[in-house]
């Protein structure tokens, strides 16, 4: 930096708004500049229109001192993105044969994100040459959180190098030691192409119980298992280097690792339409304003008529100053009472992991229009869900504050993604007749089991641990349930449809209900508190055990 002082890094992205045309989303990170020092800043940016360049500006003391335009290479815009942490920028050539939309990215450890949300566009992370000592605590936590919330991770074990200790809670295997494979016929049988002749340097694994294992020459060389909502594999073989780098079977190996992305349970853009946005009209303020205006004009008339002098005019001026204060106070109060933030938080418990993914969608209704500022929960990434005008996202520590000029005739819709520590669970017994639920500190209202397009209402469930009979009758079609605009089920309706969305395609049953526990939320900057009446919190808990029994046959 050329000088010291308060500085800002501003990243501007262009977006298209349906009503107002082209708009700009500016992400601002303030920092204290130190003269002569190179400072690295991380700026989380959601790119709305990849065809337009990003404009980066450096502000120092309110003055722009440097700027650049960053154009995105269309070839690097991925349908599916695989990130390989490796010292060698090679080995992912087979990806194009797996999925022609797949794009590889070779990075070093310091490029890994500090926020788990920054992995959102990543389909697979492969750790090959990772020195854990080069990762910060935030980078370790974000990788672990991402995996537990649905990320897919492959760790390639290198001879002589231990697996990263911070990943131990999610790794499906640990290392036994170096193995030299003379032949690996099992790999050929498993992945559809004979493996090259030996010797093949490998690391023998010791799989965890329940992990899926692939052996080569009788030695476990691949182990994979679920970790929360994600999936982690440890490979004792390295398909990025010879002799396996030329093996045709690596295509299927990578295809298995990449898998098919799971659908999002809810569609953020559809959630906004289900919020039931309300904008109260403050009639009291209108009446009070009318009274104050009449008092002001009438009082002024009386004073000026009784004292038609310069002194009388001075009294009038004093009355005007007083009236400015009174009417401004009234106006600010009326605006605050009329501005409403309606929101829903969809909390998805990661199975068998102490964390939940939270998607928040909020609609700010500002009946008088004009500038509005909304603060996202700490640690959440936030962005407008629908464009209506220019937006400025200002980061301070781990909190984003969004401000925009809001139109009076349409709500300003925002979304945020975050994670919260949470450990709730649900499990069917072996007969699939009794559901044991552990809800922790808060109960679940209007709970129901959702499974393959069917819904079994359970009523209200208490906080803590409880068991509930779930007989085979009483199931309803999800298509009937989601049409009820007063129940939380409406949030699972597909966009522009009356049918249930991705929730009907989940592979396992889930327990769903309105949760009364604390959930992160947007707040209006001028109020700094959440209106519980304008907030829905929906909790989804994956159900373990056998699938439920449905009278009349399984779906």
């Amino acid at each position, binding site marked *: 930096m050329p000088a010291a002082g308060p500085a800002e890094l501003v990243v501007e992205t262009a977006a298209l708004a349906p*009503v107002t*045309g082209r708009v700009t989303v500016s992400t601002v990170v303030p920092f204290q500049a130190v003269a002569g020092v190179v400072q690295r800043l991380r700026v989380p940016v959601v790119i709305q229109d990849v065809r337009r360049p990003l404009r980066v500006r450096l502000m120092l003391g309110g003055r722009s001192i440097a700027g650049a335009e960053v154009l995105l290479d269309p070839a690097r815009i991925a349908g599916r993105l695989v990130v390989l942490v490796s010292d060698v920028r090679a080995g992912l050539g087979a990806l194009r044969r797996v999925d022609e939309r797949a794009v590889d990215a070779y990075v070093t450890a310091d490029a890994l994100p500090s926020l788990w949300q920054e992995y959102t566009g990543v389909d697979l992370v492969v750790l090959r040459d990772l020195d854990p000592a080069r990762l910060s605590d935030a980078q370790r936590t974000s990788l672990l959180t991402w995996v537990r919330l649905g990320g897919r991770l492959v760790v390639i074990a290198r001879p002589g190098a231990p697996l990263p200790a911070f990943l131990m809670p999610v790794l499906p295997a640990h290392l036994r030691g170096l193995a030299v494979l003379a032949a690996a016929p099992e790999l050929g049988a498993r992945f559809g192409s004979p493996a090259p002749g030996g010797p093949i340097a490998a690391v023998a694994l010791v799989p965890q119980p329940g992990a899926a294992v692939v052996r080569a020459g009788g030695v476990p060389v691949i182990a994979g298992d679920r970790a929360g909502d994600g999936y982690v594999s440890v490979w004792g073989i390295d398909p990025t280097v010879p002799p396996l780098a030329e093996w045709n079977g690596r295509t299927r190996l990578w295809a298995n690792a990449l898998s098919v992305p799971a659908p999002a349970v809810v569609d953020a853009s559809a959630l906004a339409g289900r919020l039931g946005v309300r904008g109260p009209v403050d009639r009291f303020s209108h009446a009070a304003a009318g009274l104050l205006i009449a008092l*002001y004009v009438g009082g002024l008339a009386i004073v000026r008529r009784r004292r038609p002098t310069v002194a009388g005019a001075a009294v009038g001026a004093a009355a005007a*100053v007083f009236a400015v204060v009174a*009417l401004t106070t009234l106006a600010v109060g009326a*605006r605050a009472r009329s501005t409403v933030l309606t929101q829903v938080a969809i909390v998805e418990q990661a199975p068998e992991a102490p964390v939940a993914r939270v998607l928040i969608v909020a609609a700010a209704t500002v009946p*008088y229009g004009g500038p509005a500022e909304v603060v996202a929960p700490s640690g959440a990434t936030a962005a407008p869900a629908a464009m209506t005008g220019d937006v400025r996202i200002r980061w301070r520590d781990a909190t984003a504050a969004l401000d925009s000029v809001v139109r009076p005739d349409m709500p300003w819709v925002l979304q945020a993604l975050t994670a919260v520590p949470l450990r709730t669970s649900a499990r069917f017994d072996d007969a699939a007749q009794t559901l044991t639920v552990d809800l922790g500190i808060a109960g679940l209202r209007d709970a129901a089991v959702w499974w393959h397009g069917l819904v079994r209402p359970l009523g209200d469930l208490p906080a803590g641990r409880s068991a509930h009979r779930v007989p085979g009758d009483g199931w309803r079609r999800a298509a009937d349930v989601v049409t009820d605009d007063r129940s939380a089920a409406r949030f699972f309706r597909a966009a522009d449809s009356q049918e249930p969305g991705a929730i009907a395609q989940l592979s396992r049953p889930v327990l769903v209900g309105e949760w009364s526990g604390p959930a992160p939320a947007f707040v209006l900057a001028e109020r700094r508190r959440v209106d519980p009446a304008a907030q829905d919190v929906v909790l989804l808990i994956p159900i373990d055990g056998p699938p439920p029994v449905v009278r009349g046959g399984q779906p």
Partner: protein
Amino acid sequence: MNNPVFRGDLRARAASRKIFAIELFYLGVLGVLAWLGMPPELGAQPAERAASLTTALLVVQAIIITYFVSACASQEIAVETEKSPVDLVFAPFAPRSIVAGKSLATLATVGYWLLLGAPLVALSAGIRRDPAAGLVSAGVLIAVVAWSMGQLGLWLGVAIESEFSRTLAHWGLLTLVFVGTLALPLPVRTINPVLGIAAAQSGALSAAVYAGYLVFGMACDAGARMTLRRYVV
């Protein structure tokens, strides 16, 4: 404050029933507009609509203040007990003193009326969170426009003896400023007070517009002074 013409005009205007009626009319119009503009407009609005109700209120304020200030200065509205510049020359006061006093009286009237209207503008701006800096800029523009038109009225009052011709010229020039300037090409068109107020509110108005009206007002002052000298024996 040492100017006797200024002191005399202030006393006359403070005591005038006509000025009192103008103030009531002005506050009544602004009050009704501010109150009727309070309920939010929840219906769909066209995307190109940029002006807020506060801007509309400021424009109405500018039109009323500018008209009445210049009408009083040109004696189209004769304020009770207020002496015309020509009468004051025979009082006898120096033309410089007369023009300075009348100019200050106009400025004080403009400022006072802006202050009286401020609570109603504050109500409209506060409920829509219109930026205060924009309101101040627009207020300054209204003051500058109204004062310069007042000085034009002063000159017309001195230069044109016929009441009808003076009124005609006054209305013609006001129409030229408020309507005729709309025909100018951009960016000169922003000298139109209506467009200027919107631009001032958004912080986009050039300082040259303020300066232009100030220079115009001072030129009218000079014209009035030179014309008054004709009456000095």
